[in-house]
């Protein structure tokens, strides 16, 4: 086994160790904390690079590479549960992305959180998160993955609620945790079922893993209720966990609220890595999702029920979130809904196209979404914590670097043709959707989503960076003097530039002509072939998506760019055209209110019931036991006092009364004693005589 595979565990452990050391450091030692965190991430990145090179070296020749390391974890009865990690192309690309983006965001946080007094706590939590996320990536055992998954959720909770003094932040953290919990419950059931079915939780184990042929073959043929194959059922359950973590409809409600956390948190967790964990999970268990009798016997890919579920939910999420993003006013919230929408695209890609398609969009999205969030953070920082886009404007004058990088990110997200990575990755998905044998609706929904994406991003850019500054329109909340926005320090803008460069360059490893990424992940041979452009439907789809992008950009400019927005309080242009529709979109289709009225109410009712039960029935039981014991004690005491003591006292009384009586014999007079002797003499003689006679 090569050195890197044996020591792959260092990659997650280094940040966790950094977190531990930071936790015990005093609050003042900021340099110590951030250098530990950044240092550990850089080391992890270097190790991930080594791993990537290693895997690349193995697969360049067109073979599938997968190296694993396992060890015994827990003992259940007489069996040992195996844990371990695996190094294959999927793992390698994910590791490289997470560590690279993570390092940049850590550096950015040094500047962003410089004025915050809980600087060291922030870096402690960030490092812990990074360690947990990397653990999810390298894990070979579904159990180990789940454990790191929960840890990721925990750190997300800690980071969303970082400013826990704010009630909205605390509530958002709680909402995130509980919503993802619901998905995780289904995930747990699926995991346990999988273990029961296949007897192992290791993904790959030289043929004996649960993602390998023999286990899958057994699961495919067995059916449960409703005639569903066991593999489908388990796959859907596991997908529920992924849906929770990745904010798919209906478990998407926590992601926009999670913007209460600091912007680096939003960038790292809710754009690039944690929400991508759900997509990663689906990619990991893809063999299970795509298992069908046809595939197992002949190797032909066919759409399975599980993959259909994934696709439809992804498509619905993509369009749903994109439409809500059109009507939002908070700069981070627009990006949050954009993230939800893009996650929908990733799921759609996984469902129709396979692991490589979905993962490519995940990787490119990580870069440009992190860039966008960090840019938004720079904007917020420059506008002195203002987050409402209606109150910003004309920032490209004061924040040129931020504007340039933000523009690059926007164009990548919209999928501007040829130059930007978003175009290539989104196109892969649309092409795969176009070729889906089940239905064409996801394809059309994807196209419509692309239009909306371009539209709302353009709207946002025009609101924020163009026109005149509306910052000082309302001066009641500020100290009275004019706010002049300023560019952020280089510690914040340098990562932006790096990410912008990657957003452009990454696209080139995923073009149909030179499909490095796809070949790498799928284990095929890498080659350059321009002829692939002419293959089934690639060019028409590219054309269609280009049209959509330009349409969206044009509409955005038409409505928001032609006339600069002057009045911060003026209603949105769309609101004047279609007020009811705008209001519905602005209120996120009233989903939160629906949940509040139904689930939350039921939950509250159940909680009240439980509280009542606990307070009266169980506590009553305990109280009655304690009353019984008290009664017993009282009874004991009474018996002791009345019977035992009294009896004893009476006995003593009797003895002393007897003694008093008998003391009358002690007259002190000799003759009385003599009388007694006389009586004794009589008795004695009688005794003797009778005794001898008898």
């Amino acid at each position, binding site marked *: 086994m090569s050195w890197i595979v044996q020591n792959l565990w260092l990659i997650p452990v280094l940040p966790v160790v950094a977190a531990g050391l930071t936790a015990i450091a005093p609050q003042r030692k900021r340099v110590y904390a951030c250098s530990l965190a950044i240092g550990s991430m850089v080391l992890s990145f270097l190790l991930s690079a080594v791993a990537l090179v290693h895997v690349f070296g193995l697969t360049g020749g067109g073979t599938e590479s997968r190296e694993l390391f396992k060890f015994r974890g827990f003992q259940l009865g007489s069996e040992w549960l195996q844990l371990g990690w695996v190094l294959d192309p999927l793992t390698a690309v994910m590791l490289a992305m997470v560590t690279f983006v993570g390092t940049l965001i850590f550096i950015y946080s040094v500047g962003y959180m410089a004025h915050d007094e809980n600087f060291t706590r922030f870096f402690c939590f960030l490092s812990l998160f990074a360690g947990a996320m990397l653990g999810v990536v390298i894990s070979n055992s579904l159990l180990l993955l789940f454990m790191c998954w929960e840890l990721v959720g925990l750190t997300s909770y800690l980071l969303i609620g970082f400013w826990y003094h704010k009630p909205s932040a605390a509530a958002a953290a709680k909402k995130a945790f509980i919503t993802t919990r619901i998905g995780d419950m289904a995930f747990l059931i699926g995991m346990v079922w999988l273990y029961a079915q296949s007897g192992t939780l290791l993904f790959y184990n030289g043929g004996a893993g649960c993602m390998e042929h023999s286990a899958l073959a057994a699961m495919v043929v067995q059916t449960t209720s409703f005639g569903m194959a066991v593999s489908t059922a388990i796959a859907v359950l596991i997908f529920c966990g992924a849906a929770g973590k990745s904010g798919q409809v209906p478990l998407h409600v926590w992601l926009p609220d999670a913007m209460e956390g600091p912007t680096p948190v939003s960038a790292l967790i809710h754009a690039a890595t944690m929400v991508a964990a759900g997509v990663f999970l689906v990619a990991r268990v893809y063999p299970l999702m795509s298992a069908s009798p046809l595939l197992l016997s002949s190797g032909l890919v066919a759409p399975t029920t599980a993959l259909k579920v994934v696709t439809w939910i992804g498509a619905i999420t993509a369009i749903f979130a994109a439409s809500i993003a059109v009507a939002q006013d908070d700069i981070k919230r627009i990006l949050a809904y954009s993230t939800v929408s893009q996650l929908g695209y990733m799921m759609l890609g996984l469902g129709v196209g396979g692991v490589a398609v979905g993962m490519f969009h995940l990787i490119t999205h990580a870069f440009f979404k992190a860039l966008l969030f960090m840019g938004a953070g720079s904007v917020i920082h420059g506008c002195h914590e203002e987050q409402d886009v209606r109150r910003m404007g004309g920032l490209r004058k004061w924040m040129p670097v931020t504007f340039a990088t933000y523009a690059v990110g926007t164009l990548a997200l919209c999928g501007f043709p040829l130059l930007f990575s978003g175009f290539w990755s989104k196109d892969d998905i649309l092409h795969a959707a176009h070729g889906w044998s089940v239905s064409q609706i996801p394809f059309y929904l994807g196209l419509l989503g692309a239009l909306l994406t371009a539209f709302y991003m353009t709207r946002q850019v025009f609101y924020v960076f163009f026109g005149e500054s509306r910052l000082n329109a309302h001066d009641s909340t500020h100290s009275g003097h004019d706010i002049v926005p300023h560019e952020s320090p280089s510690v914040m803008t340098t990562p932006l530039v790096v990410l912008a460069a990657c957003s452009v360059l990454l696209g080139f490893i995923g073009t149909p002509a030179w499909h490095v990424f796809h070949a790498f992940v799928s284990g095929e041979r890498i080659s350059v072939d321009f002829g692939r452009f002419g293959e089934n439907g690639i060019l028409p789809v590219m054309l269609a998506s280009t049209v959509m992008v330009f349409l969206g950009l044009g509409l955005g400019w038409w409505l928001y760019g032609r006339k600069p927005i002057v009045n911060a309080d003026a209603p949105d242009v769309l609101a004047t055209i279609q007020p009811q529709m705008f209001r519905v979109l602005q209120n996120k289709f009233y989903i939160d209110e629906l949940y509040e009225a139904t689930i939350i109410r039921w939950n509250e009712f159940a909680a009240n019931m439980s509280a009542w039960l606990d307070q009266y029935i169980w506590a009553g039981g305990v109280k009655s036991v304690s009353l019984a014991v008290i009664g017993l004690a009282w009874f004991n005491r009474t018996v002791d006092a009345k019977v035992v003591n009294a009896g004893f006292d009476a006995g003593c009384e009797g003895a002393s009364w007897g003694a008093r009586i008998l*003391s009358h014999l*002690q*007259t*002190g*007079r*000799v*003759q009385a004693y*003599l*009388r007694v002797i*006389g009586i004794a003499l009589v008795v004695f003689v009688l005794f003797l005589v009778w005794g001898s006679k008898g």
Partner: protein
Amino acid sequence: MTLTSYLVLSALLFSVGLAGALTRKNAILVLVGIELMLNAANLNFIAFWRYGPNPELLTGILFTIFSIGVAAAEAAVGLAMIIAIYRHYKTTNLDHIDSMKG
């Protein structure tokens, strides 16, 4: 004069002595009663010696001699004690000498 008559006499004497010891108030008279009882016992010994199986052993006589000796010693000490008590209590009435009452 069978043995029985002597024994009965001895018993009678003993009873009289006991009666006196039990009833008389004066301490000295109690001692007198005790002397009578001792004498009754001596008479018993002699009677048994006379009508016993082995008179030549002289057991009865010697016992009686020693008994008389002991009685003498006892009378001396007893009377001395009565004198001492009389000095303390200023009375010989046994009803009044009850400091051992308890």
